[in-house]
């Protein structure tokens, strides 16, 4: 057990990686064995993540230095600079890792029956594992160049999965657009890394942060990082790839793509809070993020209303919900230098934003999975052709209702808990933003009423006389997420205090992060 805890950070990344390489070989033996193997591996990873989470919450940040002769000593003896790659697992990283592990497992379980009738499944599961590796790698890394490498793994595997259905042209088109944007973005991140390297001769995030001078080059690097990661998480007006990619990917992949965008969001926060923190002009950068967030909220939800492709509609809602997170974190960043304001409402806004991340991963994942279930039985995503499905698929209808009420911020579901945190704290910062957020919430409810009405309500349509409830593994996948939503809704206090508050504190306290890695400098 001690061995597992000590090596947990690398095992969480290396085991799915090993499994991904082995999956191609195993599926040559038997497809059934491969399915069991993938599920086992992802469950074991979830177990490891929870173990590591317990360790992080009891004894603080974990550092794992790869390839040295001791796991935790970052700098070689006699030198004050870390030369090896290290994994740093603090509250924020483990928070994202929990989300990633849960959603990956659910996605894999759901895929068992959803993807059964398609060919190329060995590559599908390989890519699915690699995608979760990419996310874990981005979340745990403490090194700028390593971040770039795992960003590429994540974007390549997710693009390949978006283009999985090659019998039509649209998935390839969506994947190509996503790929071009993420390639340019990743290369810009590499350029920013090169700027840091040129000035400080360091690639380690803590080392760069401790040497940060905020010169013109740092400003350019900051601009590049903010723009790229905001684009990767789908902030308006760089969101155009999101509806394309989300609507054309297979449903379990879409649920994972949501988490992938949140990993980029995490990278944005890591860059702004840990690399720069108070050296930067907090108010300006905070307002940039707030404006991106508000635009995302408003344009996302208004564009969602007239859509008639159910997954495209949900993709626009994903953009709109990303706006809430950006708003919450942006307010936290804007008051970062001001201790009073930070304690009175800034930290609460950040907690709200972070809590919204985990809530959003759960309910948006659930909604995309129910959309996949609808597609599975009807063969269409067009809302105009649907109706009366609740007669035959009562469980899916209930799951959809849970997700829809949660995303609209209806009490007592979890969406409400995080939204009220954002409303109240943002109201103190700027009342207009808060009111806008409420309006967006109402519009969200309105458009989900539309989906629910046109897909599930109404008389039973003649063309869907023979539909049946979806297979068991899909129900299990959706059931897990609904259970999590209700759990988070009923016990918001426990969730906020155990996993969200450490994440917010880890982001704000740059000093303790640097001290932990470089020693008391």
């Amino acid at each position, binding site marked *: 057990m001690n061995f597992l805890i000590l090596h947990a950070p690398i095992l969480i990344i290396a085991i799915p990686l090993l499994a991904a390489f082995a999956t191609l070989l195993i599926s040559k033996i038997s497809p059934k064995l491969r399915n069991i193997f993938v599920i086992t591996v992802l469950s074991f990873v979830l177990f490891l993540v929870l173990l590591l989470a317990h360790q992080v919450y009891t004894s603080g940040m974990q550092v794992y230095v790869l390839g040295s002769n001791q796991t935790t000593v970052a700098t070689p003896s006699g030198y004050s600079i870390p030369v090896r790659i290290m994994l740093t697992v603090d509250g924020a990283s483990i928070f994202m890792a929990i989300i990633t592990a849960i959603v990956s497992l659910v996605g894999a379980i759901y895929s068992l029956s959803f993807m059964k009738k398609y060919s190329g499944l060995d590559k599908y599961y390989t890519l699915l594992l690699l995608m979760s590796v990419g996310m874990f790698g981005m979340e745990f890394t403490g090194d700028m160049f390593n971040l770039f490498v795992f960003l590429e793994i994540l974007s390549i595997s997710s693009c390949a999965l978006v283009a999985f259905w090659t019998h039509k042209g649209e998935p390839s088109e969506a994947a*190509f*657009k996503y790929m*071009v*944007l993420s390639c*340019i*973005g990743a290369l*810009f991140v590499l350029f920013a890394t090169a700027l840091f390297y040129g000035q400080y001769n360091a690639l380690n995030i803590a080392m760069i942060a401790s040497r940060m001078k*905020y010169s*013109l080059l740092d*400003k350019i690097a*900051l*601009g*590049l990082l*903010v*723009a790229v990661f905001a*684009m990767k998480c789908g902030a308006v*007006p*760089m969101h*155009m790839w999101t509806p*394309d990619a989300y609507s054309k990917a297979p449903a379990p992949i879409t649920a994972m793509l949501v988490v992938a965008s949140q990993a980029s969001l995490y990278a944005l926060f890591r860059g702004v809070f840990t690399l*720069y923190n*108070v*050296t*930067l*002009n907090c108010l*300006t950068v905070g307002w*940039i993020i707030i404006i991106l967030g508000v635009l995302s909220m408003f344009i996302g939800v*208004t*564009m969602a*209303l*007239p859509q*008639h492709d159910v997954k495209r509609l949900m993709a626009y809602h994903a953009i709109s919900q990303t706006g809430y997170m950006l708003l919450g974190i942006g307010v936290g960043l804007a008051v970062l230098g001001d201790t009073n304001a930070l304690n009175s*409402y800034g930290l609460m806004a950040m907690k709200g934003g972070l809590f919204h991340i985990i809530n959003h991963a759960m309910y948006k994942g659930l909604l995309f999975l129910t959309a996949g279930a609808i597609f599975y039985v009807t063969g269409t995503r067009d*809302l*105009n052709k*649907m*109706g*009366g499905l609740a007669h035959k698929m009562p469980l899916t209808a209930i799951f959809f209702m849970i997700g829809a009420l949660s995303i609209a911020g209806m*009490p*007592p579901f979890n969406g*409400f*808990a995080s939204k*009220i*945190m954002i409303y109240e704290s943002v109201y*103190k910062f700027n009342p207009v933003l808060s009111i806008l957020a409420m309006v967006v919430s109402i519009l969200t409810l309105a458009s989900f009423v*539309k*989906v629910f*009405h*046109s897909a599930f309500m*109404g*008389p*039973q*349509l*003649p063309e869907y006389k023979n539909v049946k409830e979806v297979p068991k593994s899909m129900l299990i996948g959706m059931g897990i997420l609904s259970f999590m939503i209700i759990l988070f809704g*009923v*016990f*918001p*206090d*426990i969730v*906020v205090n155990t996993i969200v508050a450490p994440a917010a504190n880890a982001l704000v306290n740059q000093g303790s992060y640097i001290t932990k890695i470089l020693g008391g400098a």
Partner: protein
Amino acid sequence: MFTLETNTGFWNPIIWIIAFLVLCIVIYVLRSFGESSYKKGEQIKPFLSGNPEPEKGDVHIRAGNIYWGFTESLKEYYKTMTNIHTGDINDYVYWFIGILAIILVVVSVSGGGL
């Protein structure tokens, strides 16, 4: 345990769940006051006034018709928005580079931090 303290207020899901249950009971009680001798199928006919019963598919309001008024009144807005969402890869890169330019200018003009 159930109460989430935000700094200005609090939020307790249990109260809401209890309120919801009470509401359900009230509705159930109200429903039990209704006519108990309702017969399915036969008593609809007076409402149709002798007309034939419409097909099931026609009764259902399709998605395209919901919120028609809303989109109609915001026609100009939606026109601009659809113009922006061209689906052209060059435009995607346009927007990305444009926002990058704005952020770079704002960040570098606004000067140092603390």
